[in-house]
């Protein structure tokens, strides 16, 4: 089974994103809406005002909602997208069978029906899931949305050659015919063994193995309907046929796009989407530093990536109470950590690994990611606090100022037979300044007890496939430490832990995120979890896995990530939902 969640931070090609620039301020090139300032004053907020409740609630429709993206979409095609923010945004023009509730805080973790009338109805063995579509659903061109379109859409996701970016859950879990390669290459193949559509409103998914959490998979963009007649393969992303409240007006791949109301979307069939703005505009490849200034000035409303402010703007925003009041410090379900490889000598000795963990300057690690607000909370274990099953514990106390316990570290170094320290390498992704900072910080911290690190930057595109994720490379090149990070696709202990602690995901050919965890007990516990349908009962198990991994000292946790989001001027109905871990784009509106 391969569940490969990845919300890994969006690669922004950070190497060369410089260029700064000005907020529209005095006389910029941007469109400055005349009364922007007054409106901002009208809805004066405070820090974290949109974290647990709706800020500036509104039901008033109209206006243009402006997004900016410092990079570009992986794809707009529902079959081919895997960025966290795209899954948030895609709900504006696509409707899956079910969806995360658009609501502030933990409430947003609930799955609610979308195209379907209700959540999926599982068979007793959890191997068959049935959904019934609502009546009166239409595409933007007025043609009806049928169960067959959903079936077709899911079958597309199987074609990994045409759509390499999207998640593979459906392809892996449904009972597809042997050698099925998607609707283009296996034209006309009968796929009823995987999906059946007894009528236009009913769709039945058939799994290879039982899975009690199928609704989580059904909320993914893969179940958003695609009319077969309008499908143009790799070019479909140029004009995705909308099933949601907005449809594409103009789309220039790599530059930006605009969306207008979909006249054939009927609010009566859609209880989840307030659809407040009349129009949505998205600019791509916006200079990251410029973007923050424009957000502060109200020139644009939302940084669509949800990555938070840049390093440069951070100082400005946090030191000015007025600016700080316009931000929200969203908690992510993401852990930034460093793998400690027991396959590299002398880290095969647990005491040497413990020495590394004790010698780590946690405050320095936090600092490397930007400190408390933009970096996150100092992590003492794997599971982030918002993931069910989280328990707070600390096996390697780092002293009152969190800069490490050098005495303990030396103690363990002596135990492991390296009293004067040792030399090893630390890998990181060259394009990520924060990982570079982390590597440098660890080099400093471990240097205090004689552990000498050499920095090894690798291109992020090949990081897991060729370097840090390839076991033989790790051994040959003595990559004792490798900077890493992980976020889950949906709020669930399994989704978060399995990919980074299950030793069976490690492949000799490389490519897995788990670089260092090979603990038989943990593998057993993971298997145990699969047969337990009750999520409540699983919670202690997740904590147990977390502790077991930490005991082995094969993962050096860094920070549980947070993002400092700028609440764009003039936004209404703003809230961060736990499922999106950024502003929930379905709810947003703008003042007029």
């Amino acid at each position, binding site marked *: 089974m391969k569940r490969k969640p990845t919300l890994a931070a969006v690669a922004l090609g950070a190497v*060369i994103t410089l260029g700064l620039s000005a907020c529209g301020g005095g006389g910029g090139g941007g469109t400055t809406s005349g009364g922007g300032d007054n409106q901002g004053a009208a809805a004066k907020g405070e820090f974290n005002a949109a974290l647990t409740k709706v800020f500036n609630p509104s039901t008033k429709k109209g206006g243009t909602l402006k997004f900016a993206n410092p990079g570009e979409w992986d794809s707009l095609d529902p079959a081919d997208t895997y960025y966290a923010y795209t899954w948030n945004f895609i709900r504006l023009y696509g409707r899956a069978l079910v969806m995360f509730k658009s609501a502030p805080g933990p409430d947003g973790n609930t799955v609610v029906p979308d195209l379907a009338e209700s959540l999926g109805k599982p068979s007793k063995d959890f191997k068959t899931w049935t959904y019934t579509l609502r009546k009166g659903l239409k595409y933007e061109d007025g043609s009806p949305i049928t169960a067959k379109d959903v079936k077709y859409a899911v079958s597309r996701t199987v074609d990994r050659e045409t759509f390499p970016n999207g998640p593979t859950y459906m392809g892996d879990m449904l009972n597809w015919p042997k050698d099925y390669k998607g609707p283009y290459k296996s034209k006309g193949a009968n796929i009823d063994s995987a999906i059946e559509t007894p009528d236009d409103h009913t769709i039945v998914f058939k799994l290879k193995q039982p899975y009690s959490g199928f609704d989580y998979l059904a909320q993914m963009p893969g179940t958003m309907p695609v009319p077969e007649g309008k499908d143009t393969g790799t*070019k479909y992303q140029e004009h995705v046929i909308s099933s949601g409240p907005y449809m594409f007006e103009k789309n220039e*791949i790599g530059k930006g796009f605009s969306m207008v109301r979909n006249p054939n979307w009927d609010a009566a069939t859609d209880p989840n989407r307030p659809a407040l703005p009349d129009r949505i505009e998205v600019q791509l490849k916006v200079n990251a530093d*410029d973007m923050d200034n424009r957000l502060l000035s109200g020139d644009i409303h939302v940084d669509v990536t949800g990555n938070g402010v840049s390093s440069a703007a951070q100082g400005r925003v946090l030191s000015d109470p007025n600016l700080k009041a316009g931000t929200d410090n969203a908690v992510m379900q993401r852990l930034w950590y460093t793998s400690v490889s027991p396959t590299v000598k002398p880290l095969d000795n647990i005491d040497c690994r413990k020495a590394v963990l004790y010698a780590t300057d946690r405050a320095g690690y936090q600092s490397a990611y930007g400190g408390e607000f933009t970096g996150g909370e100092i992590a003492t274990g794997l599971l982030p606090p918002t993931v069910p099953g989280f328990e707070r514990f600390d096996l390697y106390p780092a002293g009152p100022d969190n800069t490490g316990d050098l005495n303990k570290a030396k103690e363990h170094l002596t135990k492991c037979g390296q009293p004067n320290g040792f030399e090893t390498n630390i890998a990181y992704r060259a394009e990520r300044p924060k990982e570079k900072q982390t590597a440098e910080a660890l080099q400093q911290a471990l240097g205090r007890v004689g552990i000498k690190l050499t920095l090894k930057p690798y291109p992020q*595109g090949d990081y897991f496939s060729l370097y840090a994720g390839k076991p033989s490379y790790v051994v040959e090149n003595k990559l004792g430490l490798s900077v890493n990070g992980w976020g889950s696709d949906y709020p669930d202990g399994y989704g978060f832990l399995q990919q980074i602690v299950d030793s069976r995901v490690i492949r000799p050919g490389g490519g897995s995120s788990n670089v260092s965890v090979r603990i038989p007990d943990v593998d057993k516990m993971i298997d145990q979890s699969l047969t337990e349908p009750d999520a409540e009962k699983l919670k202690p198990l997740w904590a147990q896995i977390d502790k077991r991994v930490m005991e082995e000292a094969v993962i050096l946790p860094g920070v549980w990530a947070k993002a400092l989001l700028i609440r764009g001027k003039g936004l209404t109905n703003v809230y961060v939902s736990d499922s999106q871990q950024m502003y929930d784009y379905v709810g947003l509106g703008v003042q007029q």
Partner: protein
Amino acid sequence: MVTYIIRRLIAAILMLLIVSMVTFAIFFLVPRLAGATPEGMASRYVGRTASEETAKLAAERLGFNDPVIVQYGNYVKGIVFGAEYDYGPGVETCPAPCLGYSFITRQPVWPDLLDRMPVTFSLAVGAAVIWVLVGVGIGVVSALKRGSLFDRAAMTVALAGVSLPIFFTGLISLVALSYGNPFSIFAQGGHYTPITENPIMWAYNLILPWVTLAFLFAAGYARLTRAGMLDTMNEDYIRTARAKGLAERVVVTKHGLRGALTPIITIFGLDFGLLIGGAVLTESTYSLQGLGKYAVDAITNNDLPKVMGVTLLTAVFVIVANLIVDLLYAVVDPRVRLS
């Protein structure tokens, strides 16, 4: 004349071949020599979640399993005859010159290049106008007033100009004049308005990059022009012109400048050709989405078809610019015969 152009065209094609081969080698041969497998190389184009099978499929789709020379041959074939591209439900023809499809976005490269060209072109043209006028003007005045306060001041500034990295001047200019402060009078980076849409905004948004880029080049051109003028004004024919009783102004403009500018035309051709192929550092500093930024982003993402496209296009620009310069040279200098 015709044979001359034919010979130049053959040379140009040869050069394009060499340029493309070297680019290809850098991206395919070097990693192969360093031990990467076709699947390994393909895996960077299929996202992190891809299984080995996906990587294999991608390697097959991208043709990585073929020997490098075959891949190169296919690429060249695409440029000459066009290529076919499987977009899923059907097959699309990419007409010649087909520069291929991005490994990552799977968009054809050629329209991208066409899309980026106006940005770089606007940047280059505007800056070139400024630097030629300012640089040559200052160079001439400096040469004529050699040793004067103006000369010394101008040459000091020019020397400083050629000694400043553009990513430093760009940064400082943005921080000083653009980023949200009281002096924020200029457009922020990353804004580009097509001239066809709004010529005033077009110019306004480009002023800072123009000036920064032009400063660097103007400094160099002022130095070149000054040296050229000094050389020329020492020529015998200048003395002859004076001996005829010509006014000094005419001596300088009609006799001096014409001789001094011809070598500058050559250098300008090369500079301009390289620049419209992508002003890498300026575009990066100001986040202008031109060819240079396109190239750098493509390199960062290992998106070979894009890199190939830009380098080839740049080489074409340089070659064309050189050809124009040579033709111009023949017009300006009757001693040069095109044969």
